[in-house]
């Protein structure tokens, strides 16, 4: 407050100087934000515009609007097959991860398993250290020895093994925060462990199961390295690998196909992310990606 100051009110000169400085700071901020917006938007523009252009170039633009690219794309058998393979991989891995993680998390949450904190600690350590990139050689050889090369099952098992520790960790948190009293009364009435898990625990932790399911699907949907190494048969490749082979094969890249396929393949992940983000916020998804 000016009245509490022992010195007189600021002179008009310093007042304008303050104003100018504030204005410059504002302008700097807006320039920064405009640059950030351009930096993030420009590479993405191609994916949004090119699928609707009948003659797309490498420059993002929309000079010949059309919807025909989508029709053409669905005539390409590799597109359909690879998308189906992706669905199969994502759903298969999701089922394995959710089922195995629910059982394990329930056991760790409710029973007095000796050293369970150490078990969780070691599991998490393993899952962050043994990445696909670091372990590609032994994983390939293991799949080779188990005759899992060129099988969807092999990819599902490898991916599930890597995702399970984090899934168990999160589900255990959910289970710890639900009361055990329902289970106690069910037990009094003679329900077995499986019955209790199915009829009482699973409905109670459904949000946790949903988070794990969506997280697994999104991760597997985008995963590249594991299917790239384990699946050499082109009829088994998922969309992530298929789209790479469309632009890495040499020759002129079919930009209509790549842009349309890329957009269609991207949309499900973005939609699922938005759903999870709106329901549960960053807490779950953010810490978990990759």
């Amino acid at each position, binding site marked *: 407050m000016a009245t509490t100051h022992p010195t007189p009110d600021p002179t008009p000169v310093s007042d304008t100087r303050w104003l100018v400085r504030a204005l410059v700071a504002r302008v700097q901020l807006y320039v*920064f934000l405009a640059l*950030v*917006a351009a930096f*993030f*938007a420009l*590479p*993405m523009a191609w*994916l949004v515009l090119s699928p609707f252009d009948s003659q797309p*170039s*490498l420059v*993002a633009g929309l000079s010949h609007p059309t919807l025909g690219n989508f029709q053409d794309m669905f005539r390409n058998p590799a597109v359909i097959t690879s998308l189906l393979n992706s669905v199969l991989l994502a759903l298969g891995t999701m089922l394995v991860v959710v089922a*195995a*993680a629910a*059982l*394990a998390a*329930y*056991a*760790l949450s*409710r*029973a*007095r*398993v000796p050293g369970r904190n150490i078990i969780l600690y070691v599991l*998490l350590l*393993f*899952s*962050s250290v*043994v*990445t696909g*990139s*670091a*372990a*590609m*050689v*032994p*994983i*390939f*050889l*293991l799949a080779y020895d188990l005759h899992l090369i060129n099988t969807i099952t092999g990819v599902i*098992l490898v991916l599930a*093994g*890597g995702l*399970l*520790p984090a899934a*168990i960790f999160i589900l255990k948190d959910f289970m710890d925060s639900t009361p*055990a009293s329902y*289970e106690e009364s069910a037990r009094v009435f003679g329900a077995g*462990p499986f019955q209790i*898990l199915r009829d009482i625990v699973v409905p109670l932790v459904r949000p946790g199961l949903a988070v794990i399911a969506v997280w697994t699907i999104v991760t597997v949907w*985008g995963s*590249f390295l594991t299917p790239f190494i384990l699946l050499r048969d082109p009829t088994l490749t998922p969309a992530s*690998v298929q*789209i790479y082979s469309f*632009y890495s094969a040499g020759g002129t890249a079919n930009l209509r196909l790549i842009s349309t396929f*890329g957009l269609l*393949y*991207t949309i499900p*992940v973005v939609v699922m*992310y938005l759903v999870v983000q709106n329901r549960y916020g*960053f807490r779950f998804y*953010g810490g978990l990606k990759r």
Partner: protein
Amino acid sequence: MPPGTPGGTVSAAGLSRRWALGFLTPAMLLIGVFLAFPAVWTLYLGLTNFRLLGPQALHTKFIGAGNYQQALTGGDFLHSLYITVIYVLLSAVIGQCVLGFALAWVFRSWRGPLRRVLESLIIVAWIVPGSVVAFLWLAYLQGNIGPLTETGTLNTILGGIGVNWWLQWPMLSIVVFNIWRGTAFSMLLFGAAIQAIPPSYIETARVAGASSWQLLRDIVIPRSRGHILTNLLLISLWTFNDFTPYLLTGGGPGNQTQFLPVYIYQQAFDQGALGYGAAISTLVLLINLVIALAYMQILKERR
């Protein structure tokens, strides 16, 4: 609390130890076979001259530390390790971390539709599948070499200067790409950290006449130190293990962007030297272990 009688203990929920072990079995089996075993097995594989094809494939030999000797004296591995460290430092530790912090700081007091649009844009860059963003960036930075090759969006905006970024500036291109790709995580994590600071702290400092810089230095950064360390370790680990550079440059031109994951892939699968690849894998696993242990240590201290 149930009476903890040893032996056939049954918890409040009626889960005996035997049932609990049964419930744990499927998950432990999967993790054991497909996560833990490969990590241990690669230690052994790295000591052999294992090959999938060719004459050596028939008689795999134990060659002791031969692969490690080759890695540490050959130059290729050390080059790869060196550029990987540079890549992690520039793109993750400096790029993602600083830009993410700046954005979280700007966003803290800015509500409105424009903020949501910008934030969503940054997050979408992070969640679009890797093989799609790889092509987006190949197209974006494409330069016209020869009459037949098209120019990408960036060169067109810059007035057709015709720089072929991927060939002339591969390292810079890939660093910028990774900043674009991964900044969202730092932004979200720092956003949470800044929100956790009691607003009264910031107000008090403002009233006392602290500048924004002083505010950051004396209040915000010290109070989010845990988040900053967590973030640095996670994004370093992820960038260190990222395979997307392979989709962008395939390690080239030459070996200028042959980061360790790309190097392992090319040695093991293109050259067929699985034993040597396994040895490099072991070294990468060790580096990951050091980063992860540091991370776990921080989590423990924050509990």
